[in-house]
């Protein structure tokens, strides 16, 4: 599989296992892909295919135990060209990456916000951390050498006593500081299209609609100007009219800030509008990865084909949707085979015996299907499936 070298984030041979009473579940199974700067990569798949676990692994958020990183590496390229290995880095390094270089927004914005704090307070913490010099500068401080207390106040770390003393000893500074914090938060909220951000500052999460909460989450995630934004089904919990607006907002923010986006979704129809490339996952493995226009127009993996055909379209005669028969296989101690073989109408005996590898079949378009093991042509018909014998030979050599 061909990979160029200007990547921002490289996931290489990643496997994530989960221990359970029934055995070891291979949630992510030898997955490799790159994310390039400024691009949007969509990670698509059905429930339990491992897309969310993959995304969480990038921030090392998989709970250990029961989870464990069984193999592979995740590398993040820094501004100076050096590379940080996320899976082996210290907890401290990972935490600084989480806040600074990679942010994440979640499916349920309601759960990601603290119900007991006003939006203003929650965002002030994040902004105090990441926009320190700007906030200090706007408040009339010298951002180069700020006083210790001022720094602590901006970071929302100052205690009640410390703040009280500061208020008594400094004349206008505390007010200016607070105003500067509020202004930067309000500006960020206004950027996400929230009307009347001043009112939002004093609101609690439960007072906001789902779409509004997601906007707040986006403002928070972008506070640090991340190089990579991971959006984990950001609109699944929202209504369709709001979904379009949120996705437009994310897209617009990307244009403005130039970050890369890893967009996790189960909905292939969103991919076309919002992603440059798409990676399709099935049962913990990558089935296909390539430019979204190309993959959607001529999907090569039978699973991608099935997934696309299953979406109801106006032209489909009623009741004749191309459903994929059967269900997703168990991920517990899976046998070495193509996981899709049991549901695949093209499956040959080789598919039940050998795990297919990801093969490049066109420019930046990789597929893991045995049909391409010997043939390098794109238009392969079912008859071209390699026979079990020849495949076995390839595997053993």
């Amino acid at each position, binding site marked *: 599989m061909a990979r160029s070298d200007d990547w921002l984030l490289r996931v290489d041979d990643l496997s994530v296992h989960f221990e359970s009473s029934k055995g070891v579940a291979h949630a992510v199974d030898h997955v490799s892909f790159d994310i390039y700067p400024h691009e949007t990569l969509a990670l698509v798949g*059905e*429930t339990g295919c491992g897309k969310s676990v993959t995304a969480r692994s990038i921030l090392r958020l998989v709970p250990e135990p029961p989870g464990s990183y069984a193999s592979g590496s995740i590398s993040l390229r820094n501004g100076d060209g050096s590379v940080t290995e996320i899976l082996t880095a210290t907890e401290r390094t990972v935490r600084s990456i989480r806040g600074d270089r990679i942010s994440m927004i979640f499916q349920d914005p309601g759960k990601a916000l603290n119900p007991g704090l006003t939006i203003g307070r929650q965002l002030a913490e994040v902004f105090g951390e990441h926009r320190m010099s700007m906030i200090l500068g706007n408040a009339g401080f010298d951002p180069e050498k700020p006083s210790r207390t001022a720094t602590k106040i901006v970071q929302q770390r100052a205690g009640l006593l410390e703040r009280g003393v500061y208020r008594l000893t400094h004349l206008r500074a505390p007010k200016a500081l607070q105003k500067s914090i509020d202004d930067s938060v309000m500006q960020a909220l206004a950027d996400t299209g929230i*009307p*009347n951000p*001043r*009112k939002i500052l004093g609101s609690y999460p439960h007072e906001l*609609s789902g*779409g*509004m909460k997601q906007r707040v989450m986006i403002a928070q995630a972008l506070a640090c100007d991340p190089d990579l934004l991971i959006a984990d089904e950001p609109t699944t919990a929202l*209504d*369709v*009219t709001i*979904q*379009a*607006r949120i996705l437009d907002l994310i897209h617009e923010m990307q244009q403005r800030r130039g970050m890369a986006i890893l967009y996790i979704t*189960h*909905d*292939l*129809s*969103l991919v*076309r*509008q919002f992603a440059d490339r798409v990676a399709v996952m099935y049962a913990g493995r990558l089935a296909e990865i390539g430019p979204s226009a190309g993959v*959607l127009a001529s999907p090569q993996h039978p699973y991608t084909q*099935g*997934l*696309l*055909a*299953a*979406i*109801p*379209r*106006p032209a*489909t005669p*009623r*009741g*004749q*949707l*191309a*459903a*994929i*028969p059967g*269900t*997703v296989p168990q991920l517990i101690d899976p046998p070495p085979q193509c996981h899709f073989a049991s549901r695949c109408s093209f499956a040959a005996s080789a598919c039940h015996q050998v795990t297919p590898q990801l093969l490049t079949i066109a420019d930046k378009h990789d597929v893991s299907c045995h049909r391409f093991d010997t043939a390098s042509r794109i238009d392969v018909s079912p008859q071209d499936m390699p026979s079990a014998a020849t495949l076995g030979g390839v595997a053993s050599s």
Partner: protein
Amino acid sequence: MTLLSGSLAADFGGTTDAVVALHGVKVHYPVKEGVLQRVTGQVRAVDGVDLSGPRGQTLGLVGESGCGKTTLGRVIAGLVAPTGGDIWVDVDATQHSEIERLRGVATEDRSPEDQASWKSLESNHRLGSMSRDKQSRYRRNCQVVFQDAFSSLNPRQLVRDIVGRPLRVHKEASGEDLDRRVIELLERVGLDSQHLLRFPHQFSGGQRQRISIARALALNPEFVILDEPTSALDVSVQAQILNLLVDLQKDLGLTYLFITHDLGVVQHMSDRIAVMYLGQIAEYGPTADVFNSPLHPYSRILRDSNPTLEDSLDTVKWDLSGTVPNPVNPPQGCRLHPRCPVARAECGWSIDDVLTDAERNTPVVFETISRVERKSDFRATVSFSEPEQAKKFAKRIGSLAAHEALEQPIRLDDKLVEVSFNEVSEAQLQQLKDGRWSSCTRTQNLGALPEL
């Protein structure tokens, strides 16, 4: 353009009768506040809906969360009692036009024959007035498949008990006969006898939904309400379930009410669709027509927001602004107008609209409002603490579409602003073309959807 007469519930789309027809159905929930639980308002979950389920067809009911579609489904299923309106069961076209005619006549003006005819209709077809026997026959005849296949099956019962329960309740089968019928039902939905003695948690989402469908079919109903039956499922499994539902409809001649928020699915499944917004039907018509040439801005917005794999991306997309208004106090006139991209003067502006606008878009002005003295929903005097802000407020109204709806020009008197709008009655669903209904006032006037 003249409007065609008649009620939407009378529209049978070529078939002769309806399994159920709704007339002005309302579901209002009281809002209680304080220690004494005083009723301070009504949540209008469903607010005056006319609809009919044409026999043998699929009626799609679409709308976003909170529009009342699920509540409406539950009213038809008998799970929620309506607080207003009538539900008619099993009415043919003649009976329907008779009901239509009699509804137009006030009770005291009805002739003795009319009264007798109304009485017989009521006692034979109206839910709530007909005999217990007929009522329970309707209940048997109308079954539901729920959205969440994970919570719609009792986790402590075996599949046999879940699917066989309706048969047992209605004493249709027991013992060996029951097991045999349950196996038949399971085979009908693509499962088999090996699944008989399992608990729901041993199944995948798609299989659970099949069990749910088997249960709904146990009593051989004519009418099945499908309440978001596939929205919790993955797309490949959704396709299996949708195909199964279509097959069952063909084989058993079922009538479906398909409730969903997914436009792609409803387009695939329905013969006709009704688009709901804030407790009311915004548009109703044959599915293809509604999708190709919507007659209500809201249908157009829904269609445009729905991501698809096919449409060209460069067409102008309509967009909804703001958030869903509070169903306790819905907007006057057309309920969509404060968020509508093509709203104009005639759409029903009121005091609440300009206040909401001020709160959202000119918060500084809004904060200086000291008092709002309302004479009606359409007339009020707003006092400000600063004359400057009063001027800004008046200017803002002048720049809105709303200012054309003013009954008289805004009177600005130092800190006071007097606003008075034309009174507008609630937008009504009306037939614009054959079989196509819309509640958009502008579309009704223009005969076509307004341009953006």
